[in-house]
């Protein structure tokens, strides 16, 4: 019975299907908000669902000479990573006693899977434009991971040195959410920027810069394989604000969380719509110099309990 329950948790709720559905809905809302900001009507709310259904109905073409197994399996890596992350996040928030020491580190490793999947897929495409896109993806990953790790260390320090997400949430529920402090605001800024890059949103969407490199690492993907990459992105849209809430805003095991979640999401969309795209070297400089300095400052403040 336990096995069946586990399967249900991973595949239906709160795993794959639930995260995917909410993620697609949020993408639809994001496109609608973007359209309204640009004074136009925009697509209907179910547009991402239609996109996915259409993609699954098309044939998947394989580029000649590309390693078939790597090409077709790498999108699954991202999907698998996101499924596990979403299950873990829900468990940590609703049943904090079920977490284990070091699960924060496990999450960091799992969050490396989607960019890795893009990198593998792009490299297996046997296309120079895909190779450029894949290398940019990895460069961007190294760029935003550094300040992110420093910020996470700071958050762990604020929680009294606990490497369990359950303890981080509990510390916030017992006291104040970490966001309501100076270091918390700094960490929030760092997290927002890093997650913007992780989601591949402007100003950090250089890896998929069309029409510069024609869809970048996804250039040779079509049909079902491309749909899997889109699924990974959609799931990330749902999971990343949840991660933000867990770390800085007291978790999401209550109804106020819906409002907090939406405000974080709207922040992502607003940043996306009001900024031009940065070149990959500019993005690298922004993260490694500016955002890292900010993150380090936040860490120092957190150590002084500010």
């Amino acid at each position: 019975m336990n096995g069946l329950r586990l399967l249900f948790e991973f595949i239906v709720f709160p795993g794959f299907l639930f995260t995917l559905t909410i993620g697609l809905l949020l993408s639809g809302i994001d496109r609608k908000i973007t359209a309204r900001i640009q004074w136009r009507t925009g697509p209907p709310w179910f547009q991402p669902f239609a996109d996915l259904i259409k993609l699954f109905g098309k044939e998947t073409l394989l580029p000649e000479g590309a390693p078939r197994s790597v090409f077709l399996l790498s999108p699954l890596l991202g999907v698998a990573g996101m499924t596990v992350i979403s299950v873990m996040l829900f468990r940590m928030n609703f049943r904090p006693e079920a977490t284990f020491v070091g699960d924060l580190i496990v999450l960091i490793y799992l969050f490396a899977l989607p960019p890795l999947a893009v990198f593998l897929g792009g490299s297996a495409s046997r296309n120079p434009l895909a190779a450029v896109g894949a290398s940019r993806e990895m460069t961007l990953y190294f760029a935003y991971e550094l300040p992110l790790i420093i910020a996470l260390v700071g958050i762990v320090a604020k929680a009294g040195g606990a490497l369990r997400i359950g303890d981080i949430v509990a510390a916030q529920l017992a006291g104040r959410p970490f966001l309501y402090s100076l270091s918390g605001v700094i960490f929030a800024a760092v997290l927002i920027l890093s997650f913007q890059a992780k989601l591949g949103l402007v100003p950090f969407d250089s890896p998929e810069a069309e029409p510069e490199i024609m869809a970048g690492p996804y250039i040779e993907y079509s049909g079902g394989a491309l749909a899997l990459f889109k699924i990974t992105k959609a799931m990330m849209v749902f999971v990343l604000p949840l991660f933000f809430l867990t770390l800085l805003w007291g978790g999401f095991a209550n109804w106020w969380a819906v409002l907090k979640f939406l405000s974080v999401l709207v922040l992502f969309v607003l940043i996306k719509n009001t900024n031009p795209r940065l070149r990959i070297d500019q993005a690298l400089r922004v993260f490694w110099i500016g955002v890292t300095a900010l993150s380090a400052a936040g860490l120092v403040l957190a150590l002084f309990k500010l």
Partner: protein
Amino acid sequence: MPNIRLWGLKRSPWVFHVSAASCNNCDIEILDVLTPKWDVERFGIVLAGSPRHADALLVTGVINRKTLPRVLKVYEQTPKPCLVIGIGTCSCSPHMFEDSYNLAGPYDRHLPVDIYIPGCPPKPEAIIMGIVKALRRL
């Protein structure tokens, strides 16, 4: 085609723009259509970065003997089912290029065109109307 597959294709046609020896007038009009003013995203139309992501090929220009193999290659790389939309009067007929030394013949000799949008160049309103008509016929 089963209904759900058709519905997906109708609701989310991603377009890829192929310029086959055109004078670029139609290409500029296609660029205009894709701007926020005409808002083709309400039909689900998005510009695809690669032919492998495309559902509709917007082909412009009189096909040249030099561009013909390349246009055919792009068509092959577009996963089926896909629409082929000929934009501009050059797609409808070779007209003044009839006796040219470099002509590769009218479109339907090489590609299964679904809809022709005449005009030199067709206005963005005409292009949108043509694409919507093509989608309705699916």
